[in-house]
């Protein structure tokens, strides 16, 4: 069963965002539900450090044995760090999607992020899909 940590925010594209309320820099990853749907992740491409991304843009890729999916930017801003560990060992996305499997960090620009979901709202969304 998928878990939905309460302290994260979520997107309809199955990313999670940590730290949005406390800091201007947030951490982004894909949800446990997404990882379960994908199966064993074999390749992760993150955006480049220093690149400017806009909410909704495809900024990376996650490949599993059977499929490939885009990673969408959940917020707008500048990419300040990427998780080289998950690039080197993509299975971290499956084993620890909310921890070691994080993907990149963004310094959020001052625009208001749109359409983020609470854990409860995201759980409801995924229960409708599966």
């Amino acid at each position, binding site marked *: 069963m998928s878990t939905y940590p309460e302290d994260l925010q979520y997107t309809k594209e199955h990313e999670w965002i940590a730290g949005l309320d406390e800091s201007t820099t947030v951490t982004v990853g894909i949800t446990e539900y997404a990882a*379960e749907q994908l*199966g*064993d992740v*074999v*390749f992760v491409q993150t955006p480049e450090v220093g690149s400017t991304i806009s909410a909704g843009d495809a900024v990376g*890729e996650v490949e599993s*044995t*059977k499929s*490939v999916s885009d990673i969408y930017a959940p917020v707008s801003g500048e990419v300040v760090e990427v998780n080289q560990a998950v690039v080197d060992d993509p299975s971290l996305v*499956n084993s620890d999607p909310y921890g070691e499997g994080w993907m990149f960090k963004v310094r959020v620009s001052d625009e208001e992020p749109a359409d983020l979901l609470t854990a409860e709202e995201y759980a409801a969304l995924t229960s409708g899909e599966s």
Partner: protein
Amino acid sequence: MSRPTPLREVHESLGATLTDFAGWLMPLRYGSESAEHNAVRQAAGLFDLSHMGEIHVTGPGAAAALDFALVGHLSALAPGRARYTMICAEDGGVLDDLIVYRLAPETFMVVANASNYPMVARELTERAAGYEAAVEDRSETYALIAVQGPRSAEILARVTDADLAGLKYYAGLPGAVAGSDALIARTGYTGEDGFELFVAAADAVPLWRALSEAGEPYGLRPAGLSARDTLRLEAGMPLYGNELTREITPFEAGLGRVVRFDKPGDFVGRAALEARAKEEPRRRLTGLAALGRRVPRHGYPVVLRDGGEVVGEVTSGAPSQTLGRPIAMAYVDAAATGALAVDIRGNHEPVEIVDLPFYRRSS
């Protein structure tokens, strides 16, 4: 709605991710598909293949009817043996690839792919008209469970008294397995030693449970279609709809050996296939291994690394557990020269040509 197999509830209780495949609700994976793949290479895997079609062809003219209907020489097949073959159209295009078991001198069982077997049954019925042979689609009555992997013979021996040591590759014998009547066939689609057990649909659940229990100490684990696909790809085995289609003859697929021109009499597709056998194929099924980590997938263009000209198309691709990098099969123009790449969503990722199969078991 997809049709469930007799094992649906077992798959659900094991937490399988179910997927639609050719109109059937099938287990895609139970947990990690990589772990399932590796279990089959190193120990054993248990597969539900009840979506496959089983068509019986019986009667004094059954052998002659199959010689006419298929590209293989089935009248030469000894009872108790099996043969990989194909059914082709008049123009030589592949309609399906098949395994034919000769169960008795006048009884054959044709095993066809899930997506094709109603069509194969119709074609066989038409082609057998005029022969003393009856064609009966018995797919509904069968479940098919496979045990594949290096430990499969030891596992199966725990639940049957049948002479497994005497059962050769591509042979089948009737026997009781865990109390159920079965056709025990030493065939598979994984590149490993293994067995396929054809049983009555009602016996599927107890047989699965008995095999699971017997296999537990050997590292047997249930394996889904995802692992089945990566296993057969590593073994260089074609999948109908990917490497084999209506537009391809067995020669392009590198499987011209299954077309038996030396058999007596005419067969459907003979004239077209004889013409095709004389010319060099314009494109060939080719093994590719990626130099990077991105996966070439079905339908992606194969291009020249220098210049980017499209010279082929990927038919199947996946990350290979055994080779540690992505592999693919592709049709590539025979005239293409120079290093190759695959256009992976706009990026030309370099690949190298490698011999098929990618994996061959030792022993």
